């Protein structure tokens, strides 16, 4: 599998969410993204079923 280019990813996402990344920070941010991607590997590989969901809060409006 081709290695992910986190630099290109960062540039695209930062532009999409209007987040300026100072050139002096760029390499540190890329390194952090790469570390997070490594940390995420076991999570992304973990099998969850279609019904393993994160339920939304149940809203309990105050009575009249």
């Amino acid at each position: 599998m081709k290695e992910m280019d986190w630099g290109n990813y960062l540039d695209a996402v930062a532009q999409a969410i209007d987040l300026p990344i100072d050139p002096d920070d760029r390499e540190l941010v890329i390194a952090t993204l790469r570390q997070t991607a490594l940390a995420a590997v076991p999570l992304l590989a973990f099998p969850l079923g279609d019904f393993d969901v994160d339920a939304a809060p149940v809203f309990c409006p105050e009575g009249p």
Partner: protein
Amino acid sequence: MESGTALEIAARIRDGQQSAADLIEAHLARIKAIDPLINSFTDVTAERARKQALRIDQMIEGGIDPGPLAGVPFAVKNLFDIEGVVTRAGSRINRARPPADRDAELILRLQRHGAILLGALNMGEYAYDFTGENAHDGNCLNPHDRGRMTGGSSSGSAAAVAAGLVPVSLGSDTNGSIRVPSALCGIFGLKPTYGRLSRHGVFPFCDSFDHVGPMARSVGDLALAFELMQGHDPKDPVSAAKPPVAIDLTAGMTGIRVAIAGDYFRQGGTGAAHAAVDQVAAALGSDREALLPQAAVARASAYIIANSEGSALHLERLRRQAFDFDVDTRYRFLSGACLPAAWVIKAQRFRRWFQSQAQTLFRDIDVLLAPATPCSAPKSGEKWLQLGDQTLPLRPNLGIFTQPISFIGLPSLVVPLPQESGLPLGVQLIAAPWREDLLLRTASSLEAMGVARAPMAAL
């Protein structure tokens, strides 16, 4: 200075053996003398404390009982709102905000029972920290060895208690921020069940697992502060409408089933950190192991959610004034703002799965034991953690044993174990949701046996 536990102080004040005014002056003098050595306080609210002490003394003179915390000094992590004080949350950026116009709910609750606030305490920037280092207010130093880290992010809350500046403090804990510094500074710290204590008036980090709780040098003080802060608060959207749990520290261990957390929690720390867990298990008469499966995935998920939620909270500040963040916080938040949504959603879905595993586990046991940190307090400025032949980045790895627990909101209490090295270690006691009573009973038993102790640091 005549010190003592909160319970002893309150007894002296209520009996008229000492005035609250004298007691508060003694504590303010101790803070003035000792705090420059450890840098635990960022704001001392001396005039407010003197006024409150006067009111307590007037109540005593008038035959009115000020409450079970009569005259007891306490202090709070500086992300708790204090009326008239700017809520720094460990940051430079927040200093431009106006002072808080009211106290956080838990401050009000403690004061209602006679406690007296002495000020705000140092912390890691925006609570995103396990070290106790702060570029804006200066590092908080470990009272047991000032060349070492306190742990974070509730650094000042742990250091001030360990140094005997206050008997009780309040901290917050998202990934381990009460438990890590409690362990490294050698005090008791309780992270209650998610939703148990009100976070109203507390600056957030990661709302879906931000907790608040007490820290103290005795289980009695920890239990009393916790007990008096309980109760639903509609101002905090996640505050649960649960009845307060009754605490009986005299009940002993009868009926409490204890097990050591296996697998993930039996590796990844120093020999001493794992031996501390064995010591606690032996004292409690348990050699049983229990498995909380996929804890490594839970830790990864906690990391991803905290990184993403925290970054989303600060997105506008990252756009406008990124360079006002400490560099170590800044690049983690910038990265977190860019995480793929699919990762975050998967982590949230996994959280529900992991929670169901914990529910199953706690059908067979009541208290699970795990290390609080992988090591004792590292040297200040240290960037790497050496475990056997492995060299790991220190900052994220200080929380490896706490993150999977707060991720699903389980209550966890750190008991301190003094070590021959002079640097304490902590062991986590973990229970099913809403069973803080079992944790406090277990901690009390360990304290009574002399296994868990929090001696005041010699400064």
